[in-house]
């Protein structure tokens, strides 16, 4: 069953262009120069119940705008959307009972009060029965391991601790769909992984549909089965994460700091990107040699002081998608902007 159905969703923002200089700003006041920005263009897709979908793209691609239309915050310019059978921007308040949202760069917790107080307020707002609320809270506190700081003011929590509370807060009312807008932004690797595990567990235990936006390819690989790539407001890829990984995220970069000089390395699919003194940056084609093997051999051969493994940047993934589609023109056009 498709619980989200979107058809040709489009959002155009009109902004008044501000010009510099006094005479120019006076002119803007009298005859404002308006500029249309198409944040989301003709986006069409369906999501089935229980799916874990990643919505990825660089900053400004239209990810948040799409989430905000699906949660009813923004009115689209044209197109239609049905979320759990409701039109989000028209039935925002009724839909609110059935969906949850987490915005990684914002907070829903009262800053000077402990998270427990914010949870209590949310229980009232969503009209939860006291007994049901207590049971739900106990479950989430246990799952997210937030018992230790449930009673400390939010301002004293670390970002990782706060984020676990933020997600728990969005789940109190048992939403059927959870929208996560950059939930791992600014978190360190270990905490990121923890958050991903929790989201996965929740999806498997409760069947909550996950709609996640991220510009971190790592979120996508671990968490989601299906991915959509959006760029300049248009969906340019919609398919399995495994296919996306095989075809477009096939490389990883390995940055090394060595305790001895670099003398080369010749595993298949390993390419030296940069090399200076004891530092070296490699690109590994994980299709040719799995990353674990490369790292293992590197560690066996060299005295390694520091090692970092990164996914290719979003821009590179997008460039490869365009390349594969033979849309080199689009790419050069955008670079020329």
């Amino acid at each position, binding site marked *: 069953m498709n619980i989200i159905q979107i058809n040709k969703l489009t959002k155009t*923002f009109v902004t008044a262009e501000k010009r510099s200089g006094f005479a120019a700003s006076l002119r803007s006041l009298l005859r404002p120069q308006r500029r249309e920005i198409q*944040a989301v263009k003709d986006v069409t897709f369906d999501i089935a119940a229980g799916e874990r979908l990643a919505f990825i*793209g*660089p*900053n*400004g*691609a*239209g*990810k*948040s*705008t799409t989430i*905000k239309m699906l*949660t*009813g*915050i*923004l*009115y689209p310019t044209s197109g239609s959307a049905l979320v759990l059978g409701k039109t989000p921007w028209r039935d*925002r*308040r*009724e839909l*609110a*009972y059935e*969906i*949850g*949202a987490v*915005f990684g*760069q*914002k*907070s*829903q917790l*009262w*800053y*000077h*009060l402990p998270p427990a*107080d*914010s949870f*209590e*307020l949310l229980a*009232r*707002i*969503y*009209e939860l029965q006291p007994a049901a609320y207590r049971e739900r809270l106990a479950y989430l506190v246990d799952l997210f391991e937030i018992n230790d700081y449930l009673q400390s*003011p939010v301002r004293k929590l670390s970002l990782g601790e706060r984020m676990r509370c933020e997600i728990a807060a969005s789940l109190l009312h048992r939403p059927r769909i959870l929208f996560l*807008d950059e939930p791992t932004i600014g978190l360190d690797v270990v905490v990121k992984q923890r958050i991903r595990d929790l989201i996965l567990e929740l999806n498997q235990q409760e069947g909550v549909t996950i709609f996640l936006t991220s510009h971190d390819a790592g979120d996508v690989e671990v968490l989601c089965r299906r991915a959509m790539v959006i760029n300049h407001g248009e969906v340019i890829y919609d398919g399995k994460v495994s296919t996306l990984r095989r075809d477009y995220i096939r490389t990883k970069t390995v940055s090394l700091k060595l305790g001895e000089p670099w003398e080369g390395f010749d595993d298949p699919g390993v390419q030296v990107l940069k090399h200076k003194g004891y530092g070296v940056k490699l690109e590994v084609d994980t299709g040719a040699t799995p990353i674990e093997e490369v790292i293992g051999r590197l560690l066996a051969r060299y005295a390694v002081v520091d090692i970092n493994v990164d996914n290719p940047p979003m821009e590179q993934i997008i460039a490869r998608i365009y390349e594969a589609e033979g849309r080199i023109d689009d790419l050069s056009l955008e670079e020329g902007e």
Partner: protein
Amino acid sequence: MTRYGFVLWTAARQQWTYRAELAMRTIQMALFMGVFMALWTTAFGVSGQAELSGYTVVEMVWYLAMTETITLSSSRVFIEISEAVKAGDLAYTLTRPLSYPFYQVANSLGNSAPRFLLNLLMAAAVVGLGMRQVAGSLPGLLAFLGTAALALLLDALVAVLIGLLAFWIEEVMPIFWIYQKLLFTVGGLFLPLEMFPDWLRRVAEWMPFQFITYVPARTFVAFEPEFVLRAVGGQIIYVAVLTGLVIFVWRRAQLRLVVHGG
């Protein structure tokens, strides 16, 4: 309704975590009342009269203590709203089964309540000690608390309206200043309406501003059931008018909503 009540309660508790800072700020109130006592004692002395427009010096000073208590507790929620509108930060509140403007009204009242309490205590302490007399009665105090609550509700509605204007104008602070100056003047913050020239008094009586400052203060110093009933009636009418206006403005604002972030 109970949801908004709990928003109010939560906002009040968050505000209460600042209680030490809020208590420090009531020093401002003590200074104002010191100046008013000196000023009006001299003014009454020079005039040689026991009453001016029906107010004794003790009543006059207590009147000012009450108007100041309300205005120094008034809402600053328009700052929060306008900043959220400009930064596109309404996202979380909008994913709730709540009305955003009424959520902010409750938030505003919750913020005002602890400040109101501390300001009232400070004003009463300073004026009580300074004048050694209380111009008020127990029914007057109770009626004051009721009309002051409605006054703060009116003030919160105005503040939410000012905040929502951020959808159309870049800077809402000047609008607040105009509102504040109207409270100072036709609201009767510094002078009770009885001291106005007739024509101005008649104009002021039709405006909402006197219901925020003059009405509760006058209720405290001269408790007259008939005045209170008429005043509360007027306050309720303006609550209804402003509520309608907030709903109307919010509907228009929603169409202009731009929540930033790619």
